[in-house]
């Protein structure tokens, strides 16, 4: 969440004039005005890492693309959230994600509730041109309530952030580098033997079927990450 000031800024998003408070991000203002910008690593209530690059937008006067989730609004800014160029890049990024690990929608518990899958449909992705990488990845079912299937992880680090920032346990983190990055619990130990508090927040914020509840079967696993702003609000109130 960004620190919101009282000063009011006027800017243009997709040819629509909108007002915003100083300190708000482009993404926040766009959402307030029902302008849709695709995101994956962003989640309201968590810190922003700007890692998935799907929320890149064009700003008039700059040839560079700008991540909407971490860019604060400026007076008179002219933002374009949709263009042929943006769609092309967003599709390629989704292709990269689909090809990176083993995403088999038909057998996934999140089928129909998956943010990666929905974005693929939303952006008109009907196939992946890139060669699939087919990495050999483990499934950690050691936890009594949850499973981590690394084949479906997109390394958005929402689980890492929710565990560190909201639950305060910091059980999850990322190990390795580049394509070999993996989310881990503690010293790369089994989830079931880790210092996990069993709160389940990581499962709720996971955008795909990488972290899931063992009690869910078939493709009956909707996720409910909307508790985060509420938690933050209640904490501030105390």
């Amino acid at each position, binding site marked *: 969440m960004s620190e919101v000031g009282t000063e009011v800024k006027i800017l243009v998003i997709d040819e629509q004039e909108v007002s915003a408070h100083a300190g708000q991000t482009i993404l926040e203002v766009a959402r307030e005005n029902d302008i849709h910008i695709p995101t994956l690593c962003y989640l309201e209530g968590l810190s922003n890492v*700007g890692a998935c*690059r799907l929320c890149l937008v064009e700003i008039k006067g700059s040839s560079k*693309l700008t991540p909407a989730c971490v860019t604060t609004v400026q007076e008179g800014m002219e933002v374009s959230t949709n263009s042929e160029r943006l769609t092309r890049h967003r599709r390629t*990024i989704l292709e990269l994600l689909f090809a990176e690990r083993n995403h088999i929608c038909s057998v996934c518990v999140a089928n129909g509730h998956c943010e990666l899958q929905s974005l693929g449909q939303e952006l008109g992705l009907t196939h992946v041109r890139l060669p699939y*990488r087919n990495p050999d990845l483990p499934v950690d079912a050691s936890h009594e309530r949850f499973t981590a299937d690394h084949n479906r992880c997109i390394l958005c680090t929402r689980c890492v952030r929710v565990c560190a920032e909201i639950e305060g346990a910091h059980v999850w983190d*990322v190990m390795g*580098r*580049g394509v070999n990055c993996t989310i881990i619990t503690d010293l790369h130990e089994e989830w079931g033997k880790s210092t996990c508090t069993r709160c389940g927040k990581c499962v709720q914020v996971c955008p795909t079927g990488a972290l899931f509840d063992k009690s869910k079967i078939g493709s009956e696993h909707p996720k409910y990450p909307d508790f985060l702003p509420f938690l933050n609000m209640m904490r501030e109130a105390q």
Partner: protein
Amino acid sequence: MTIEELDQIAASARSEREKFEHEINVCHGTGCLSQHSDRVKESIAQALQALGKNAYVRRTGCMGLCAAGPLVLVDPEGSLYQHVNPSHAEKIAASLDDKPVEELQCNLREHFDQQVHIVLENSGRIDPERVEDYIASDGYRALLMALNDMTPQGVVRQITESGLRGRGGGGYPTGLKWGTVAKAKGDVKYVICNGDEGDPGAFMDRSVLESDPHRVLEGMAIAAYAVGASKGYIYVRAEYPLAVSRLTSCLRDARRHGLLGNNIGNTHFNFDVEIRLGAGAFVCGEETALIASIEGRRGTPRPRPPYPASSGLWGKPTLINNVETFANIAPIIRKGSRWFAGIGSARSKGTKVFALTGKITNTGLVEVPMGIKLREIIEVIGGGVPGGHKFKAVQTGGPSGGCLPESMLDIGVSYDALQSVGSIMGSGGMIVMDDTSCMVNVARFFMEFCMTESCGKCVPCRAGTAQMHTLLTRICTGAGTMDDLALIEDLCSTVKETSLCGLGQTAPNPVLSTLKYFRNEYIEHIVEKRCRAGVCNMEAAAEVLA
């Protein structure tokens, strides 16, 4: 320490020297040390003693012409000896007061004549670990001048007017950066020296840190005074143990002489420096990743803004410059911004140090004025391609740079010119390739580097570099198609435009530049299944398809 005291140290160091009729400088740079120049020094010292010669033997930093090492320079005669081994010691000792040793003489006038040494002015001339040597070469004078006679704003102005641009690769105007940090609000500020020279094929920073470490510390201290910082970090690769040990000893000496620490130069200015070791991550050359690493975290970059100048190390305003940039500071303060701006080209001032390597006769370190033609560096200073082979390309800027063909050799070396032809200045690696190099394979080599060095945070760089590497490997093994080539070009565009940091944004450059200048080699691999350099094994396709 006052200027007078500094003068005294310099004077006594000089009079100490004058007791000797000769000085024999033995290069102790990494290249020469790997050929046991330390033993050469010992043997010469013994030989001198045996012959009763009145000469001072000094270990120095890098003399530059590594190809001819171990190097020995005899002053005041100015005789430079090459390929010296301990058995030559007696001859060299005996030659003093007589004719130089003919068979050892290195007569590469054209190699040295075209160079202008600012950053390397002391390299190979002083003992890097003797602060007295540095002081005798006007060392720390600039710092005391700045502290006593200039305001911080004045220092910033002088650096701005000199036209100095960051030598780490980006070429951001140094004075502008300093001004931003100086103006940033905050009572605690930091100065960081980026010595994480991860660019393969580059060793300028290593050489400067090993040959003249005090110069870098002085530059940092001046910067700290200018921006209002009292604490500095120097981030050095753990792979450079010699640089680390020399820096450690120099830090101790500088503190002992009151040139670091509290009340430097009897003023109210306090500044001290700590060394932080890198741990093998190219991405830590990116400033926000470097900061994360100093903070003890994974070296992953974060989106900018906020820039380190306003929110850097531990959220405080932080100035980050590269080793070579800091090494330029003291001479600019001493000799003035006009002098510096008089060297170089219109928008790139001063000199640039290049690590000249690959298929070139005179491998080593060279410092040339900006604007010099690539051809001059390669053919005159570098002595051209050896072994009767034909020049094919020169690579500048490392994994972020590009490969330039023969037809581009007449451009002048400057930030803008190199960028306009699809490469970059980079930190100063300059690798020459001849007809035995396959340009597709070279592109694949760099992509492999970027893939393994990608931090993994943002999707396009993490997965995009891996995909490009797969596709390039297909082409290098005879399994590539024209569709693959189109995909590579598509990925180049996305990775370049959407990656979070400089590593990803520039990772496609070696592919784009080889596609621009050597596209026919790609086509040959795909259509004719032929590698003209004979590097690629075109029958390996089956393995890769798996």
